[in-house]
C-alpha cells in the first residue's frame, strides 16, 4: 500500500469516528447547542478544552518555530500554558458562578449596558476570526500534504470540511467529538516523538531526551545541536538572541490572550459546579502539557535531523548532493513536500551540491566559498509549518506513523476551528440578534442565524487564509493580542472591581481593541491585505515591540482607560455591586438560566 492510501485511510477513519460521535450526540436545543447542557465531568471537559485549545498552531506550527529559532521562541511554550494560571485563578470559577452562556452576556449584565455587550461581541468576533485565519493556514498545509495537492487547493478543501463539520452539531456534539480528537492528536504527536527520541537519545520520553545525551556522539543533545548550527552560521540553539523586552511582552500577551479567548472561557460554563471549574482548568493544562512538554523536544530533534541530513558528513564535510536528494529513499520526503510548494531547493552555483547555511552571516559565507560550496544558501525554502508533519518522514518512520500524524494535524485544526466558529456564531445569534436586534426570535431562527454566521466567518477566514499574515502560529498570536487587549481586562475588572462602571468598561474595551488593531494593521497590512503596511515587525513603530507582542500594551491601555473614565463618571449602582459580591462566592451556584 502506498503512503497516499495509508494517509487517506487514517484520515478517513478518524473522520468517520468524529462524525459518528457528532450524530450520536446531536444538539437538540439551544442550551445543548451552546453549553452541552452543563453535564460534563471536569476531566472530560478538560480533555475537550485541550483539543479545542490546541490548534493547528500548537500541533503543526509551534515545534517548527521553536526548531528554527531555539530558545527565543520559548515564549510560545510559556505563553500558551501560563495563560491557564490566569484563567483558573482570575476568571473561570466566577464566570461559572455567574452562570450564563456567553462571555458577552457577562459583560452586558455586569456593566448593565447593551452597548457593553455589543462591544464585547465585536471584540470577540475580531479576535476569533483572526484566530480562524491561522487555523485555515494550518488546514491548508495539512490537506495539501496528505492529498498531495497545492497548498491553495488544500485550503479550499479544508474549508468545506470545517464548515460541514462545525454546522453539524453544537457544543454537545463538539464536546464528545473533541474528546476523541484529543486522543487522536496526542497519540499522533507523541508516537513519532518517542521514536525519534529513541533513535537520537535512547530515551523513550522526549521531554527527558531533550536534556539527555546524543547517543551517536555521547555529547549532550543540546550541546551537539548548538555546535552544529553555529558552524553553519546560525544562532546557537539554546542562546538568547531576541530582544528581551519584546520577548517578555510577547509571552505576557500570549498569556493574557489565552485567558481572554471566548471559545476557551465558554468551556468553563459547561461544568456542573464552581469547584469543578477550578479543577477543570487544571485538567485542561495537564492534557495540554502532554503536548507542550513534547514540543520543544520535537523541535530540537527535528532541527538536528534536518541539519545532519543536509550535511551527512558533518558541517565540515561535503553537503548533500542534488543527486542523493532525488535518488535516495531517505530523502523522498523532500520531493513530496516540494509538491506543496512549501519546501524548495536549488543548486545555484551548479556544483551538484545543495549547501544549507546562513548566507546572512559574512564569516560563514567566506568559509563556504573557500570550501567551494558557493555563497548562497541552496535550501531556498523551508516553511516552518511543515516541520511537524514532515518529521516522521524525515526520521524515516513507518508509513502508518505518517498517516497518523496527518490525521492528528487535521484533528487539531478542525477541533479548534469548530470551537471558534461556535463562539462566533453564538455571539452573533445569541448576543447580537436575540440579545439586541430581535429578542422575539424563535429557537429555530436563532439556530439558523448561528449557522449563517458560521458560514460567513469561514468564508472570510478562507479568503484571508490564502494570503496569511504569517505562519499559522504567528497569525494565531495576533488573535491572542486582540483578545488580551479587549476581553480579558473587561472580565477581570468586572469581577475584581466594583468601581468600574458601564462607561469605563466600554471606553476601555474600545480603546484596547482599536489601538491594538491599528498597531497590527500598520505592521501586517490593513485587514491583513499584503503590501498595505507602513511598518514591518523587523523594524517596528515602537522601539522593539512587534505587532504580535502589542496585546499586553493594549491590555494596559484598556485597564487604564476604564479606570480613569469610571472615576469621572457615575458610580456603579448598588444592585450591580451586589451582583459582583455574589459572583465572588460559590454559594448558590445553580444551573445556568437562559433568559
Amino acid at each position, binding site marked *: 500500500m502506498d503512503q497516499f492510501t495509508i494517509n487517506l485511510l487514517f484520515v478517513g477513519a478518524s473522520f468517520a469516528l468524529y462524525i459518528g460521535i457528532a450524530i450520536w450526540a446531536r444538539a437538540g436545543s439551544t442550551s445543548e447547542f451552546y453549553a452541552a447542557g452543563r453535564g460534563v465531568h471536569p476531566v472530560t471537559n478538560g480533555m475537550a478544552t485541550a483539543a479545542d485549545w490546541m490548534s493547528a498552531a500548537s500541533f503543526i506550527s509551534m515545534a517548527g518555530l521553536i526548531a528554527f529559532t531555539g530558545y527565543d521562541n*520559548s515564549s510560545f511554550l510559556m505563553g500558551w500554558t*501560563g495563560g491557564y494560571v490566569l484563567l483558573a485563578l482570575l476568571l473561570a470559577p466566577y464566570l461559572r458562578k455567574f452562570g450564563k452562556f456567553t462571555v458577552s452576556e457577562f459583560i452586558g449584565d455586569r456593566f448593565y449596558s447593551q452597548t457593553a455587550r455589543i462591544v464585547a461581541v465585536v471584540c470577540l468576533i475580531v479576535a476569533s476570526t483572526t484566530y480562524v485565519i491561522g487555523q485555515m493556514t494550518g488546514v491548508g498545509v495539512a490537506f495539501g500534504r496528505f492529498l498531495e495537492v497545492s497548498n491553495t487547493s488544500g485550503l479550499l478543501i479544508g474549508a468545506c470540511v470545517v464548515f460541514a463539520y462545525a454546522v453539524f452539531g453544537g457544543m454537545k456534539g463538539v464536546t464528545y467529538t473533541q474528546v476523541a480528537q484529543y486522543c487522536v492528536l496526542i497519540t499522533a504527536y507523541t508516537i513519532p516523538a518517542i521514536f525519534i527520541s529513541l533513535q537520537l537519545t535512547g530515551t523513550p520520553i522526549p521531554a527527558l531526551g531533550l536534556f539527555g545525551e546524543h547517543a551517536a556522539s555521547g555529547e549532550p543533545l543540546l550541546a551537539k545541536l548548538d555546535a552544529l548550527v553555529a558552524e553553519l552560521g546560525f544562532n546557537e540553539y*539554546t542562546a538568547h538572541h531576541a530582544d*528581551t523586552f519584546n520577548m*517578555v511582552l510577547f509571552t505576557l500577551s500570549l498569556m493574557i490572550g489565552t485567558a481572554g479567548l471566548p471559545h476557551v472561557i465558554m468551556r468553563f460554563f459547561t461544568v456542573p459546579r464552581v469547584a469543578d471549574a477550578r479543577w477543570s*482548568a487544571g485538567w485542561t493544562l495537564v492534557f495540554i502539557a502532554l503536548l507542550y512538554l513534547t514540543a520543544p523536544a520535537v523541535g530540537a530533534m527535528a532541527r538536528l535531523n534536518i541539519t545532519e541530513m543536509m550535511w551527512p558528513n558533518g558541517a565540515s564535510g561535503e553537503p548533500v548532493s542534488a543527486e542523493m536528494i532525488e535518488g535516495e529513499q531517505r530523502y523522498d520526503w523532500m520531493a513530496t513536500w516540494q509538491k506543496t510548494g512549501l519546501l524548495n531547493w536549488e543548486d545555484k552555483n551548479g556544483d551538484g551540491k545543495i549547501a544549507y547555511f546562513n548566507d546572512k552571516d559574512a564569516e560563514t559565507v567566506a568559509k563556504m566559498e573557500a570550501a567551494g560550496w558557493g555563497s548562497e544558501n541552496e535550501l531556498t525554502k523551508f516553511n516552518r509549518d511543515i516541520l511537524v508533519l514532515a518529521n516522521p518522514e524525515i526520521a524515516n518512520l513507518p508509513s502508518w506513523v505518517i498517516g497518523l500524524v496527518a490525521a492528528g494535524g487535521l484533528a487539531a485544526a478542525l477541533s479548534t476551528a469548530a470551537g471558534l466558529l461556535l463562539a462566533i456564531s453564538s455571539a452573533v445569534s445569541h448576543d447580537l440578534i436575540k440579545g439586541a436586534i430581535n429578542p422575539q426570535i424563535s429557537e429555530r431562527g436563532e439556530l439558523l442565524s448561528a449557522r449563517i454566521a458560521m458560514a460567513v466567518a469561514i468564508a472570510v477566514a478562507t479568503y484571508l487564509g490564502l494570503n496569511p499574515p504569517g505562519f499559522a502560529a504567528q497569525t494565531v498570536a495576533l488573535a491572542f493580542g486582540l483578545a488580551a487587549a479587549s476581553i480579558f481586562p473587561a472580565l477581570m475588572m468586572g469581577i475584581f472591581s466594583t468601581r468600574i462602571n458601564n462607561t469605563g468598561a466600554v471606553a476601555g474595551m474600545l480603546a484596547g481593541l482599536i489601538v491594538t488593531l491599528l498597531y497590527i494593521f500598520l505592521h501586517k497590512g490593513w485587514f491583513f491585505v499584503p503590501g498595505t503596511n507602513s511598518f514591518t515587525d523587523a523594524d517596528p513603530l515602537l522601539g522593539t515591540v512587534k505587532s504580535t507582542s502589542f496585546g499586553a500594551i493594549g491590555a494596559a491601555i484598556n485597564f487604564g482607560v476604564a479606570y480613569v473614565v469610571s472615576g469621572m463618571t457615575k458610580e456603579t449602582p448598588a444592585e450591580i455591586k451586589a451582583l459582583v459580591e455574589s459572583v465572588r462566592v460559590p*454559594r448558590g451556584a445553580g444551573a445556568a438560566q437562559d433568559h
Partner: protein
Amino acid sequence: MTDQATHIVETAEADRGYWSANVRIIIISLVIWALVSFGFGILLRPALSGIAVGGTDLGFWFAQQGSIIVFLALIFFYAWRMNKLDKEFGVEE
C-alpha cells in the same frame, strides 16, 4: 435587629473575609507564576547560567519545561486550597 438581619450582616462579613483570603492566595500564586516564567525563564536567566542542566543551563530548562510544570502545580494547589477555603467560610455550593 432581627435574627434575619444579623444573619445577613454576618454573612456579608464572612464573605468579605473569604474574598480577602482568596485575593491573598491569588497574589502569592501569581508571584510564583511570574517568577518562574518571566523571572527564571527570561530576565534572571543570565544569573542562573552557572547551573548546568543537560547540555544547557537552568534558565533554558525553566523556559521550555520547568515553567509549565510549575503552572500545573499552581492550578491544582489553587483548586485544592480554594475548595478547602469554601468549607472554612461555609460558602461552598
